[in-house]
């Protein structure tokens, strides 16, 4: 039995580290987008490196946690749900990384006049990420608090959609090349997608929570 409690403790801290990595990924993403828009190339590249590391770390931790859950056959009843949750959260940081790396690869020429909108959209997506991490933490530690975080995820996702639409309307009314319009719009879509992925996780988490409380 003490062995069981010990492995439980290690696993608990691994799950915490995994969630920290996702949450940090969001913050780094925000700073990364900011430095791209402000043309701070060196800082931007540093952010890209940081986010790649965080994504790798999250991947490794997720695998370790999954292995542990199965080798010690822990939480047999909720194992599937926990694995689902971790994999979906991993998708969030994946999307974050891809979006930021695409900025580096494609170097979109975003009109300065909509920088503020981009920053606002990024802020909403990152908030959605942050809230879904909080909700996931509550799922492990304090099941009654999950719902308090989930409704915030939905709120920020809607905000992100709203800002994305506003941004697109602005872009497509600008007197710039169609290619640039489409390119800018795609990046707005990618950033907003982070919130969409977070919303998807929230929907699943809602079901997992109901399953656990009945």
């Amino acid at each position, binding site marked *: *039995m003490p062995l069981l409690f010990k492995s*439980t403790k290690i696993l608990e801290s691994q799950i915490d580290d995994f969630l920290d990595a996702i949450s940090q990924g969001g913050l780094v993403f925000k700073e990364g987008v900011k430095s791209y828009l402000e043309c701070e190339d060196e800082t931007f590249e540093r952010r890209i490196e940081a986010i790649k590391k965080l994504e790798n770390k999250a991947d490794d931790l997720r695998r370790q946690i999954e292995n542990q859950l199965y080798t010690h056959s*822990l939480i*047999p*009843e909720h194992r599937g749900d926990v694995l689902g949750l971790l994999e979906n959260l991993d998708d969030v940081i994946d999307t974050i990384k891809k979006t930021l790396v695409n900025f580096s690869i494609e170097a979109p020429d975003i009109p300065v006049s909509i920088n503020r909108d981009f920053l606002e959209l990024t802020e909403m997506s990152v908030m959605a990420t942050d809230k879904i991490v909080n909700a996931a933490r509550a799922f492990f530690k304090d099941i009654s608090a999950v719902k308090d975080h989930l409704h915030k995820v939905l709120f920020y996702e809607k905000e992100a959609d709203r800002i994305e639409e506003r941004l697109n309307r602005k872009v497509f009314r600008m007197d710039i090349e169609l290619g640039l319009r489409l390119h800018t719009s795609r990046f707005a879509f990618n950033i907003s997608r982070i919130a969409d992925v977070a919303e998807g996780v929230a929907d699943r988490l809602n079901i997992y929570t109901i399953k656990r409380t009945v």
Partner: protein
Amino acid sequence: MLLIYLSSGLLLGWSLGANDAANVFGTAVGTRMVRFRTAAIICSLFVIIGAVISGAGATHTLGNLGSVNAMAGAFMVALSAAVTVWLMTRWMLPVSTSQAIVGAIIGWNLFTGSRTDIGSLTKIVTTWIASPILAAFFAIVLFLIFRQIFNRTPIHLLRWDAYIRAALIIVGAFGSYSLGANNIANVIGVFVPVAPFSDVDIGGIIHISGSQKLFLLGGIAISIGVFTYSHRVMQTVGHSLFKLSPITALAVVLSHAIVLFLFASEKLASLLISIGLPPLPLVPVSSSQAIVGAIIGIAIFKGIRGIKYNVLGGIALGWVTTPIIAGVITFISLFFLQNVFYLEVSREMVYKVDQSVIEKLASKGIIQEGFQDIKARRFRNPTRFEMELRNNTDLTQTERRLVMNYARVDSIYVDEFLLATKIPPDWFTKDQKASLQKLKGEHFAYPWEFADSLRALSPDWHLKPDSREYRVFNRELEMKLEYLQNTFRADNSHSE
């Protein structure tokens, strides 16, 4: 020969271990919360402890229902019950060892013309109805408590998992203990009055009675059942029959354990008496029915529709059919045993009311004119004797039972050889041993005459007032007297 006779009881124990252990640990093992090896070891250990320490209570009630008093008879009663359990399992009908054995005992009573104690029978049947209802009630209460704790306490999911595992093991151990205490009576109870196991005294501290040795044997048989066959049943219970969450499982298993414990614990019964409450009868109940009751309780509470009424019907049908089938099988097989194999399936019970009995009863305040009509007549059939008593006297049922007790002829001869060899030196006091020596070579027609003579010779044989503090002392004294009566029964005598 003894082991051959006991084998049917041990077979019954094996099937109990294979089937009922799954009730205790099935969900835990089936859902992989507890490993089978861990479950099997804990289950076996606690079944044995429960059987040896608290097995006597429920056994006593079964003994009252009908005291199977010959080895071959006891063998057949247990075998018929085992065959019934096997048949019902093959026909995929829910079966309870408790019901099978009760049916088989009644079959023996009918065949041998012994009286079935209606009081005990009523007590047993009422308990069968009460136990699933009680289990349902406990399960709902426990489920509510656990759910509150689970949903309100901010503890990490993984740590909860570890706690629930630990809890399932602890509750499983308690459940196994209760199963052993309550159901050992089914397995080996019928052998208690007949098996020639003497009591052992270890250093004057630990006293292991003959029946406790039997309980140990039965417990071991149950353990073997657990190790050899219960794994499959556990997988079935855990996977296909009912899908329970670990918390629901915990509530179900704990309520099952409490119910079995309530109907087995002599300590609890005397505690209830001491605080002025009516005690619960100590009766072997069906472990499966307690589990089913608990699950249905939670299902109803959760408002789950689609309770399988045909399954419920099957269970109810099992209640009625199991005892009947067991009774019929016993009756038929006893007939063969007696008339084809010429084995003694029951010891003859002789009743005779002579002057000494009339005087003894008068001293107890039972005076009846009608005794004169049956005086000095020998009755070889208890049912017949009770009928005569009913016709000739206006005694109450309790009084009739008392008369039957005093009128039972069971010759005792205080044999010198047995006196020298069969009296455990540390168990009896100096005075008790001295008084026994004084009765050397004496004959007694009635067991009570023997006890009265001992009491006349030494105050150490006197029962103390019936109160809580003296209960253990009095039981011990009664056990000693019963042991002496069995030892010095005239047919055991060496010098005659």
